[in-house]
């Protein structure tokens, strides 16, 4: 994680001096399917049939993110970003509320490829579709609360964090709004091949259940909308059409 942070800072530093750099603020939500964790929740429901409101499975994730986009070459950008995700499963029963939260902190380095722009002056496009590939590391913080008290494992509060890695891919479109702001709807798919959430089952169930695993493959499909602020020489980078119109006026 430390290395990723250093690399990110270096990228930001080196590219901030160049044209077509953006600061991206984004948010959105998505679908998360941590299979083994959901299986554990199902087993929790199965073993506690007296719970009237069942514990919902993890399905949705809310995301907030901060990123940076800098040009590497025409049509090729690098986008390191950092995002916070929260997935929540809450059930409310008389005398027995259960709140399971998964907090995911993701650091990614993405390559944004603008396939229509290779060899062209990219500033001339209002709509700039792109394909994203990337990868990075995540910190996962599972938290289980029963009646607002943290779950325990062997009498110790269960508040761990775990590290894992992910691969990401996506598609999106950068849309020119004005000289300062672009907006960028994009869909991103994150895949974490091995998310090990140790003792999650112990904390949730109070016992080891042999058929339940603490290791999940996690897929996450995100629907995000980014607002991008141009940095540095951004004000000079007006779209081509605008520049042409200006020149024509000058001829008159």
């Amino acid at each position: 994680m430390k290395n990723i942070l250093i690399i990110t800072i270096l990228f930001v530093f080196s590219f901030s001096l160049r044209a077509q750099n953006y600061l991206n603020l984004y948010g959105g939500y998505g679908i998360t399917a941590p299979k083994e964790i959901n299986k554990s929740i199902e087993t929790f429901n199965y073993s506690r049939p007296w719970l009237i409101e069942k514990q919902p499975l993890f399905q949705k994730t809310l995301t907030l993110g901060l990123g940076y986009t800098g040009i590497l070459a025409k049509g090729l950008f690098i986008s390191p970003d950092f995002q916070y995700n929260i997935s929540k499963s809450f059930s409310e029963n008389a005398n027995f509320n259960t709140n399971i939260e998964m907090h995911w902190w993701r650091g990614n380095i993405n390559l944004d490829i603008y396939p229509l722009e290779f060899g062209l002056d990219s500033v001339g496009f209002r709509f700039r579709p792109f394909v994203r590939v990337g990868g990075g590391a995540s910190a996962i913080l599972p938290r289980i609360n029963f009646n607002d008290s943290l779950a325990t494992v062997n009498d110790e509060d269960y508040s761990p964090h775990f590290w894992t890695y992910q691969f990401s891919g996506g598609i999106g479109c950068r849309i020119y709004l004005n000289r300062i702001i672009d907006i960028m709807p994009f869909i991103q798919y994150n895949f974490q091949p091995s998310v090990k959430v140790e003792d999650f089952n112990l904390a949730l169930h109070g016992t080891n259940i042999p058929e339940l695993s603490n290791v999940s493959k996690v897929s996450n499909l995100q629907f995000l909308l980014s607002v991008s602020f141009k940095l540095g020489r951004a004000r000079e980078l007006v779209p081509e059409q605008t520049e042409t119109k200006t020149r024509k006026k000058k001829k008159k």
Partner: protein
Amino acid sequence: MNRRILLKQLMMGLPAAAFLPSFLSSCAKEELIDSFKFNGSVIVIGAGASGIYSANLLRNYGAQVIHLEARAVIGGRMKANTSIPGIKIELGAEEIHGKRSILYDLAQFNVPDSLIPLPGDDYYHLENQLRTKNFLIESSDLEGAGATMFQIIDSFASYPGGAQSVAQYLAEKELDARFLEIANALIGNEYGADNNKIGMLALKEAEDGYSSGEEGQILKDKSLLELFEIAFSEDINQVKLNKPVESINYEGAQVAVTTENGETFFADKVLVTVPISILKNNSITFVPSLAADKLDAIDAIKMDNGLKIVLQFNAPFWEGNTGSIIGGTKVPEYWITGAGKNENANLITAFVMGEKAEYLAGLSDAQKITEILEELSILYPTGNVSGKYNSINIVQNWLQEAYIEGAYSYPSPGSEGKRAILAAPVKGKVYFAGEATNFNGHLATVHGAMESGYRAVKEILEA
């Protein structure tokens, strides 16, 4: 396209973007446990914690349940005495071990106001004096022997050695002889026997798996059996009492379960939740006979006698904050029965397992009381113990309970790995649950019995 058109299109696209994840989520499979296809019939034998809970689970998942209990009452080793006003005295299972267990959740859900932490401090019987844990650890007179004992006890889960008893291991560790009775109370007696009957490898297995926590809980104004009656009343109403099972024939398409009075019940499967003692003494005949490894497991897992003797006094002679008195030579552990429940009840429970239980069980009730009063008088020389005894007592001898015949299973030498073998289903027709089949470290507990219940029911439903 100008900006206005762009914004219009974006606005039109936003609802789609908003609803797409929900739509996709709804398409996702709702149930990962989708293999619960069984909707046949199951005979559950035994109406203790495991049997009652298993029957409830089976009905919840669509199975038809015939529930048989050998005795005239339900509850198994959950039993309460209500003869003394203002307090429900647990004569069997008493404590909810830890705060992360299915039993704790059940209590939290059903009787949250009744659930309280185990009250009081522990005192240790050392050279006829009562000492605190801090004294045992820190006293310079003991030269670290007390601290060593607690360190040994705390490290059982990582025991690196081979097969030997706890008593042998303590000798190998040269535990100070003054601490042997305390160690016996904390290990052997706690697990339902004596240190010379507990196997280190089996103990390691149990300690390693134990995860529900050490913070004991009790129900201040309910008994554990009442908790089950509240939570599973409909299931309890359907238990067929006085149906001691004589044989289980699983040769045919259906399992035939025949009782001692000649009734035969048929079902697709049978779930056996009787105590290990009943399997050990061959009270139930299996046709065909169980496999050799299963019989070997039944033989290896031991269960001894256990006594609870409750005495009432006119006034307390103990310190007000007393919880337990640990390490007696006659009674390994006493506790103040009314602590947290009814402080004015002035009751003491003597909790005796293994050889000491056998010795006391051989005496008349009057002799038992005399022995206990003598020991308490040594511990409280100025307490006028005998003078304060008001002649009210309750003696619970679990060996004498029909169809139970003992306290609970313990980690006997050679039983390591055998609980999983005992728990394994036979030919998809005969299933086993109960505390002795818990191989997750929660043997000998109510929550362990319940856990074995949902493990077995899941096996049935997935079959």
